[in-house]
């Protein structure tokens, strides 16, 4: 595409532009956003801290201004980014000029680099999970061993041991077994997580269908816009369903007809619970008074970080659905949907790992 030949580009107060000479799309925006995120996280970490005995959260309003300043810097970075790109509406794709990405769309490379940094974020969460899962004795094993750790030390009430979230979600803990799959009983507590898995997979499919439709030149503009809007709206609805079910699973629980499940909070699976009466299986009245903070915080941080990414995708989807409704997508600027799709598939990809690791096993 020879967009450079057709358009005049002038110096802009919003950032250094040199598109007319074939240079990459330089921008200060990523550096400003990174700085903002750094300030925001610094302030956020200082706003919430644990007390001396590590059993409660202390809220400190003194750091709130830092949080707000960080948030303002992030917003200004996004504003600059948006202002720089908005005039092109995705029709112009600058190419990368350096090895090894020569002649690849530079925004595509940028998205992939961003996704890889995201991969590192989730890898830290999985590393933490693996480390604690392997390194902390399971409460069931201790109970089976007559309230004794494997090294022979007796278990004292309040000691930490591992109860996976799957014990509450997909394990024998559930009293409600109304769903039958070919003779197999399926706990009701697993239903939200299972539906969410299907919802994310379907939403990945609707995004690729939106992209495929936006690239179709055989459709007239109105029909294409309507179909793209519908696919993106379907994705948004599925994402909303995902977060709604997540809230139900964590905080609310459900009691619909024959289906009943308490929330994880109601079950006592919280990051503050240091005295959970773990009865396990096959032990009659015996139980351990276990400290759940380790396993619960690992679960909530990992799945919560994933949920935050879903929410971020919903914000972008809202804008894109509105843009599609206004007829903003055509075969020449459909790559915007592709780039969002890469992010969304990544969110789905992470869930593919989170679901079995945290919900099923």
């Amino acid at each position: 595409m020879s967009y450079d030949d057709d358009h005049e580009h002038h110096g802009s107060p919003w950032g250094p532009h040199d598109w007319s000479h074939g240079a990459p799309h330089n921008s200060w925006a990523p550096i400003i956003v990174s700085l903002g995120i750094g300030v925001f996280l610094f302030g956020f970490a200082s706003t919430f801290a644990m007390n001396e005995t590590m059993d409660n959260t202390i809220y400190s309003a003194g750091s709130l201004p830092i949080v707000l300043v960080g948030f303002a810097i992030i917003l200004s970075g996004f504003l600059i980014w948006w202002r720089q790109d908005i005039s092109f509406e995705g029709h112009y794709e600058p190419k990368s000029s350096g090895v090894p990405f020569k002649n690849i769309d530079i925004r595509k490379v940028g998205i992939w680099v961003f996704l890889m940094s995201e991969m590192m974020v989730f890898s830290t969460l999985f590393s933490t999970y693996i480390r604690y899962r392997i390194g902390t004795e399971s409460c069931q094993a201790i109970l089976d061993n007559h309230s004794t750790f494997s090294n022979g030390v007796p278990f004292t009430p309040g000691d930490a041991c591992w109860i996976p979230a799957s014990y509450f979600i997909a394990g024998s803990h559930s009293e409600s077994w109304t769903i039958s799959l070919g003779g197999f009983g399926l706990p009701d507590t697993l239903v939200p997580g299972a539906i969410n898995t299907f919802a994310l997979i379907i939403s990945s499919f609707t995004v690729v269908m939106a992209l495929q439709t936006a690239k179709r030149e055989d459709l007239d503009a109105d029909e294409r816009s309507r179909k793209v809007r519908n696919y993106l709206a379907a994705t948004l609805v599925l994402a909303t369903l995902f977060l709604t079910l997540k809230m139900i699973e964590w905080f609310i629980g459900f009691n619909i007809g024959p289906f009943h499940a308490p929330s994880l909070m109601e079950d006592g699976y919280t990051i503050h619970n240091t005295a959970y009466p773990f009865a396990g299986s096959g032990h009659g009245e015996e139980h351990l008074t276990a400290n759940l903070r380790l396993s619960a915080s690992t679960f909530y941080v990992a799945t919560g970080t994933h949920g935050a990414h879903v929410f971020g995708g919903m914000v972008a989807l809202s804008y894109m659905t509105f843009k599609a409704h206004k007829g903003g997508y055509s075969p020449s600027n459909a790559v915007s949907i592709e780039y969002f799709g890469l992010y969304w598939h990544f969110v789905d990809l992470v869930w593919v790992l989170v679901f079995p690791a945290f919900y099923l096993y």
Partner: protein
Amino acid sequence: MSHTIFGKDAYNMNFAMLMILTVIEVGAVAASVQEIITSQMIIFVLVSIGIVKFLGIAFIFMHLRMEEDSNILTMTALFPVFFIGIMIAVIALTSPASPDSLPAWCRFW
């Protein structure tokens, strides 16, 4: 450009595969809870299905195969694997008590 697998649209085929594998995944857990299959078997099933679903999404939906720039983008996607390997070796497989021995300047308390 539309791609095919066994003569069918690649997106549709991948979508169908992901849905079927998820049904198998959930069914396997139900079988595990009923003690029809062992805990070792369920780990094997979940890991195997997880890898196949992961590759299906990355290769088909994220276009790491079948596009002109797929190879270099696949290399980009693999780049963090080195660091993830280090992280798993150094963090995930170490003793949970390790942070207790860190010097004070590494800790918040």
